[in-house]
C-alpha cells in the first residue's frame, strides 16, 4: 500500500518496460457517502474525534438520535438524522453524514483574505492552515454549506481536513476506516462517480427509488465528497443539504469586480488630488491687503 504512493519510473535489473510506467490516473480524491446504507452508528464521528485528537464534548438532546444540532470547531463530522414522510405515507429515517464537501471551487478560499490560510491541494482536498488564519471568519461567509467553525478561545477556524495527513501517506480518511456497513467509500473522483452511478442504478431498478441520484453539485464545481441519495430531487430533506449550492454572489462580487473597481477608484482619487496640486497648487492667504494686491498684479503678469 505504501509503495503505491510513489510512482516508479525505472527499476534496476528489470527485463522489459516498467509496470505502470506512463499510466496516469486522475489524482482527484473523493469520498462517497451512500446514505441508503448508513445505519447511523456514529462510528465515523468517533473515528474523526480520535484521529484528530478531540475529546467528546457535551451532546445536545433534541428528541432524536442526533449528537448535536450542527458541526463544531472541534466536531467536524456529524450525522444528521431526519424523519421523513414519503408520499405514500411511509416513514423514512434519513441519515446523512455532514462534513466539509471539499468543493472544487471553494467559497471559503475565495473569501479568505489571509495569505496561505486556506489551501486546495492538487488532489482536491481543501485544508485550513491555522498558523496563517487571522480569525476574520470570512470563510464562514463564503461557504454555502455552513461548515467552517470558529474557536473563540484561539480565534481560529476549523473544519474537516478529509484527513489530508492520512491521505498524503496513502491511508483512507478515519471515517472511512471506521464505517462498518461500507456506506463510506474513498478513492479517485472518477471511481467514486462510477460507483455512485452503479449504486444509483441499483436503487432505481431494484429498490423502487425512482428519484435516486448522486449529489455532486455543479454550482461549486463539483465536490470532493459526494452523496448517493434515495431522492436526489429533495436534498433539503437530508438535514438541509442545499439543492443548488453556490458561492454567494455577494462574495463573488466582493472578491472580484468590486476589488478592482475599488482599487481603481482609490488610485484615481490619489492621482486626482496630485494632478490638482500640479495644476492649481496651494491656496495661500496673503498677509495683508497690500500683499493681496501684489498677488493680483502677479497673477495678471503671469496668467
Amino acid at each position, binding site marked *: 500500500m505504501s509503495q503505491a504512493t510513489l510512482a516508479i519510473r525505472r527499476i534496476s535489473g528489470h527485463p522489459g518496460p516498467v509496470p505502470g510506467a506512463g499510466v496516469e490516473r486522475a489524482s482527484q480524491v473523493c469520498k462517497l457517502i451512500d446514505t441508503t446504507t448508513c445505519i447511523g452508528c456514529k462510528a465515523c464521528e468517533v473515528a474523526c474525534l480520535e484521529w484528530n485528537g478531540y475529546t467528546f464534548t457535551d451532546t445536545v438532546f433534541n428528541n432524536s438520535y442526533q449528537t448535536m444540532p*450542527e458541526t463544531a470547531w472541534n466536531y467536524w463530522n456529524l450525522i444528521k438524522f431526519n424523519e421523513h414522510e414519503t408520499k405514500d405515507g411511509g416513514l423514512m429515517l434519513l441519515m446523512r453524514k455532514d462534513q466539509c464537501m471539499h468543493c472544487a471551487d471553494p467559497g471559503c478560499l475565495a473569501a479568505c*483574505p*489571509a*495569505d496561505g490560510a486556506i489551501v486546495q491541494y492538487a488532489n482536491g482536498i481543501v485544508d485550513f492552515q491555522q498558523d*496563517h*488564519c*487571522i*480569525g*476574520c*471568519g*470570512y470563510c*464562514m*461567509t463564503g461557504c454555502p454549506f*455552513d461548515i467552517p*467553525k*470558529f474557536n*473563540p478561545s484561539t*480565534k481560529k477556524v476549523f473544519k474537516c481536513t478529509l484527513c489530508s495527513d492520512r491521505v498524503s501517506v496513502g491511508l483512507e480518511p478515519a471515517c472511512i476506516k471506521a464505517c462498518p456497513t461500507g456506506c463510506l467509500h474513498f478513492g479517485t473522483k472518477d471511481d467514486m462517480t462510477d460507483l455512485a452511478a452503479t449504486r444509483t442504478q441499483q436503487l432505481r431498478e431494484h429498490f423502487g427509488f425512482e428519484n435516486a441520484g448522486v449529489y455532486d453539485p455543479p454550482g461549486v464545481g463539483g465536490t470532493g465528497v459526494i452523496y448517493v441519495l434515495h431522492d436526489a430531487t429533495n436534498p433539503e430533506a437530508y438535514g438541509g443539504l442545499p439543492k443548488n449550492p453556490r458561492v*454567494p454572489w*455577494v*462574495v463573488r462580487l*466582493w472578491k472580484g469586480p*468590486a*476589488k478592482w473597481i*475599488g*482599487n481603481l*477608484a*482609490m488610485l484615481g*482619487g*490619489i492621482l486626482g*488630488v496630485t494632478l*490638482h*496640486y500640479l495644476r*492649481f*497648487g*496651494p*491656496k*495661500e*492667504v*496673503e*498677509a*495683508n491687503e497690500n*500683499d493681496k494686491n*501684489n*498677488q493680483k498684479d502677479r497673477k495678471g503678469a503671469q496668467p
Partner: protein
Amino acid sequence: MSISHVVSPARTVDESGERILRYTLSDRINHWIAGLAYIYCLITGLGFWSPYMFWLTILVGGGPTARFWHPWFGLVFCGSAFWMYKVWRNDMLTNDADLAWRKAMKYYIRNEDEKLPPIDRFNYGQKAFFWLMFYGAIFLVLSGVVLWFPELVPWSLRWLRYLAVTVHVTAALATIGGFIIHIYMGTAMVRGGFTSIIRGEVSAAWAKTHHRLWYERVTGRRERG
C-alpha cells in the same frame, strides 16, 4: 512677497499678528483621536481588502493582531464621530450661503477664491465631508458588528453576513474617497489648515479669506471689500 512667506506660508500672520481661535483644545484632541483611529482602521482594513495590501497588516503586528484591534479602533472612531456631531452639528448644517458657494465651487477648485461668496465657519465641502464621515461611521459600525462576530449570526440569518459585507465595503470606499481629499486639502492645498487643527488658531487674514461670515461673527467686525 518675503522669502519667509514663501518658505512657510502656513505661518502667514495678519499685519497686526492677530490670531483667531478656530478649534478648541478638545476639538483638536478629538479630531486626532478620530484621525489616528481612522488611519489604523484604514491600514488594517486595506490589508483585509486586498491580497496585494495584506502586507499592511504586518506593519501593525500581523494579521491576527490586526483582526483583533480593527473593530475596537472602529468603535473609537465612531465614538469620536458622535462627539464631533455633538459639538459641530449646528456649524455643519447647510445654509443659503453654502448653496451659493456650492454653485461657485469651480472657482474654489481653481483657486480663484475672490470670486466666491462669503461663508461661515465651514464651507460646503467641509460639511459634505463631515456628514459623509458621520454617516459612514454609523454604517461601518452597524455592519462591522456583524463582521466582528460572524459566528454568532445563525445560518438562517446568513443574508445578514452578505449585507454586512456589502455595506462595510461600500461605506469604507466612500469614506476613503473623502479621506483622500481631506488629507490633500488639509495638508497640501489649503495652507494654514493643518496648523489650525494642530495649534487651533488661524490668522485673521486666513479667516477673512476662507470664512468671512465666521470671521465677522466671532470678531464682531464687519469689513466689506
